[in-house]
């Protein structure tokens, strides 16, 4: 009657072994460290660099724990965060633009464990601290981009209203100059421009909005000071969302993103494995632009030689350094890209990129290709590379844009939203795809500050908290051992295994443990306690009713299992809702809760029953139970 299938014992032992293995990395402390990653293709990570770094550190009086070369980076492990700051301050200016130097907390988990995919749980910013970045919006670029957008809108409305114009240009002072052709209706143009601006900026023209002044056939649009401020502020808010998506896409849970001042964004990431990589992805502003080719290589070379470049065109270069004339007008810009998928071209076997545009971009592309079959289309890859130079002992930050033509093929047929192009490396295509999925940055942002921050709760506070949690847990265990005796010991073993499973699964998922996560853990332990109490009380009840001990155990487990099942499933429903709609810390709570409930169902119903069967089944004449 009191029996338990053998395979379930095997399952329990297996779970126990796997849980122990994957919970183990949490026992290892992390080293503060500095990570050096090449940021250009010429930079190499080799023994020479290692020797150079060691030399530099020695000069600065820093003794590292060790310097090691990993796959694609050099890792300098240090004793504490003070030497870490000193080391990064020493290395950063010397290694310059070719390498990116990032702060990191390096794991000390032995290789055999990491090879099994075991990694420690990340402690949240509140418990452990992490890396603190400050990014600043490039206001000039944000403004320029917005004004270009307005100018583009004006061109479209003028063309649609059939008002002739010879040029619509952004001027260096961020006003827009419109020159109409002779005899064009200036007033009609003015009305059209006003409507276009009103819909683009959300403000009516005149008053505090943009101003339009006319002089003969020349119109000038000026943005108000308020509008300029608003563009910068908007850019920060938009970028906050995009950056949050990007951080999520690289699997970092529970970052803190806060706006600071007018044009800055604070990003705090809890203990991160590869900060350099994170920085590269967060700040990356690579994009594609599509422009009509206005002159072939020969014409372009001639234009470069004579210095006589047509007014509507610009010189671009491809990877080989050959010039090409492309239209100044952007046909489709990066914010109209939805996706870029790395593919392999079926005819040539070359890496290619499948590009998807949004509907507006798709329509423009369709219109353009309809009218220009046989003409060439240029695709430009634009990447922004931030640079830091030391001038007179001060860090001077600037950024340069690298533009390169990746493709300038002839338009063979009409296409719209989806098409293929070659010319990007697989890695570039991958990165681009990831960025596009997260959304394009409204304006470029640069890292202006990077620090390692301590836990926001304070080390002593965290320690007190952990100690209190530990005592509370031990108190619970002792209470059960006294109250339910033998069954209490079984309950305790089930609770400990429960905790071990939760820690193991959370480590495996790369979840972040923060204080709200602790709340979820406390709740799941509470539910686990409840499940065990339900079982034990039910067994007592059956015994009181006069049932023989073995039958009481079986009935007790069976009846209590139903209750546990119902109450725990409702808990899981709540967890799923919180995960689906919650953000950051709430998701942490939800994940802990769901894992905790599943573990609790397993340990209370399966594990404790297995143990009880193991203890009582061999006893032939069982008169009473120690419960």
């Amino acid at each position, binding site marked *: 009657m009191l029996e338990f299938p053998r395979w379930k014992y095997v399952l329990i032992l297996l779970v126990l072994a796997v849980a122990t293995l994957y919970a183990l990395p949490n026992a290892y402390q992390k080293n503060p460290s500095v990570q050096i990653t090449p940021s250009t293709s010429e930079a190499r990570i080799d023994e020479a660099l290692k020797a150079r770094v060691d030399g530099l550190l020695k000069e600065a009086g820093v003794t590292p724990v060790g310097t090691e070369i990993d796959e694609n980076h050099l890792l300098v492990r240090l004793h504490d965060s003070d030497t870490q700051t000193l080391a990064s301050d020493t290395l950063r200016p010397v290694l310059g633009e070719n390498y990116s130097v990032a702060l990191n907390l390096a794991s000390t988990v032995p290789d055999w464990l990491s090879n099994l995919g075991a990694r420690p749980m990340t402690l949240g910013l509140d418990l452990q601290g992490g890396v603190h970045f400050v990014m600043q919006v490039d206001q000039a670029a944000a403004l320029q981009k917005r004004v270009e957008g307005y100018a583009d809108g004006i061109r479209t409305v003028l063309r649609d209203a059939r008002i002739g114009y010879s040029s619509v240009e952004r001027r260096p002072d961020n006003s827009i100059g419109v020159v109409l052709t002779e005899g064009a209706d200036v007033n009609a143009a003015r009305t059209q421009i006003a409507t276009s601006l009103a819909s683009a900026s959300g403000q009516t023209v005149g008053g505090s909005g943009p101003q339009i002044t006319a002089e003969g056939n020349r119109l000038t649009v000026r943005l108000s000071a308020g509008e300029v401020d608003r563009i910068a502020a908007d850019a920060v808010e938009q970028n906050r969302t995009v950056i949050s998506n990007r951080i999520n896409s690289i699997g970092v849970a529970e970052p803190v993103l806060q706006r600071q001042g007018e044009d800055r964004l604070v990003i705090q990431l809890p203990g991160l494995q590869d900060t350099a990589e994170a920085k590269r992805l967060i700040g990356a502003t690579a994009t594609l632009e599509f422009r009509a080719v206005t002159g072939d290589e020969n014409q372009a070379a001639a234009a470069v030689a004579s210095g006589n470049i047509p007014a509507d065109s610009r010189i671009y270069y491809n990877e080989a350094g050959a010039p090409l004339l492309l239209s100044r007008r952007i046909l489709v810009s990066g914010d109209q890209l939805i996706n870029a998928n790395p593919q392999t071209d079926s005819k040539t076997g070359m890496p290619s990129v499948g590009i998807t545009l949004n509907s507006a971009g798709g329509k423009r592309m369709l219109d353009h290709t309809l009218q220009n079959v046989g003409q060439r289309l240029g695709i430009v890859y634009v990447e922004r590379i931030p640079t830091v130079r030391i001038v007179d002992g001060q860090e001077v930050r600037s950024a340069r844009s690298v533009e390169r033509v990746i493709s300038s093929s002839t338009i063979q047929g009409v296409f719209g939203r989806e098409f293929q192009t070659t010319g990007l490396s697989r890695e570039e295509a991958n990165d681009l795809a990831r960025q596009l999925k997260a959304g394009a940055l409204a304006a470029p942002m640069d890292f202006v500050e990077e620090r390692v921050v301590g836990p926001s709760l304070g080390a002593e*506070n965290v320690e007190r908290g952990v100690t209190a949690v530990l005592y509370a847990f031990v108190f619970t265990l002792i209470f059960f051992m006294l109250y339910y005796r033998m069954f209490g010991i079984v309950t305790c073993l089930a609770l400990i295994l429960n905790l071990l499973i939760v820690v193991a699964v959370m480590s495996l998922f790369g979840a972040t443990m923060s204080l709200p996560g602790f709340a979820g853990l406390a709740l799941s332990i509470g539910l686990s306690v409840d499940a065990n109490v339900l079982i034990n009380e039910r067994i007592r009840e059956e015994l009181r009713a006069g049932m023989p001990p073995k039958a009481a155990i079986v009935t007790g487990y069976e009846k209590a299992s*139903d209750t546990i099942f119902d109450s725990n499933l409702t808990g899981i429903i709540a967890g799923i809702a919180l995960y689906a709609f919650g953000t950051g810390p709430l998701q942490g709570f939800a994940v802990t809760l769901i894992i905790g409930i599943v573990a609790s169902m397993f340990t209370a119903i399966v594990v404790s029953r297995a143990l009880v069967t193991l203890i009582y089944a061999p006893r032939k004449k069982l008169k009473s139970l120690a419960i």
Partner: protein
Amino acid sequence: MKIFPLTLVPANTRIDFMRYRHIFITIALLAFVGAFAVIGLKGFNFALDFTGGTAVNVRFENPVSVDDVRERLEAADIENAQVQTFGSGNDLLIRVRAAEDIAHIDDNAELAQHVLEAATTADNPGRILSTESIGAQVSGDLRKNAIYAAIFVLVGFLLYISFRFEWKFAVVASVTTLFDVAVVAGLFALTGREFDLTVLAGLLSVMGFSINDTIVVFDRVRENFRGVRAEPLEIFNRSINQTLSRTIITSLVFFLSVLALFLYGGGSLEGLALTQMLGAVVATLSSILIACPLLTYGVLKVTKQDLLPKARDEAALERRP
């Protein structure tokens, strides 16, 4: 003979809970209205996570202890400041909630000065490296998402409990859970403590064990309705009494554990522990005194027929020759 050496709650209690059900429901109704009144009138004292504030970067001459600085700030009436080491041990990043009328960086200079004076001591002076205003950590979407999540939870509860029990149980369980969360939130607002993300997590866990407690009692009600021949009121009383021992032990263990966190866990855990303590008490009381009585009123009145598996019976009847 006493088979069990330790029992907190005597076996076979026969407390007539249902006799006073009108009183319990009246009190509950008052508490419910009261909770909303408190939240509406007094409101929550939202913390830095929700409001944003001012970040002050202070450099000290000597390394400082984060916890000492926090205590000094608290002594100077700058409550719940977030203090973090910033790069080296001499630099601290102190984030405080700005008073409501301070919106711009310039106005924050005074506040920053106040923070500096409170944080530093004569033998470890410091200076302000920078002062900046910071936005809320919780984005504006949270409110909208919280409403979606609440709706999803509610619908999920209603569907699942209707499927496993009956729609009346589903409605009562959801109402009881809502009641618990609202009353705990109201009590928390009454304390005037800072409402931060951990308190929000605490409220969510109240929701978790509230529904758990109610389901455990309902499960017993369902079992007794199906197996025992008695009046509904008698069945409710019996079910509550049978689960009383379990309810008290679980709640007591949980309450004592959380009390330990509240007393010894330090300031950071207080908000969380307080909500969970309040939650343990309110959820236990509501599962004993409110959930079952609600099943005796108006449309929610449960009868034996509600819980008998109807479809199966009819099918079984048809199969009979």
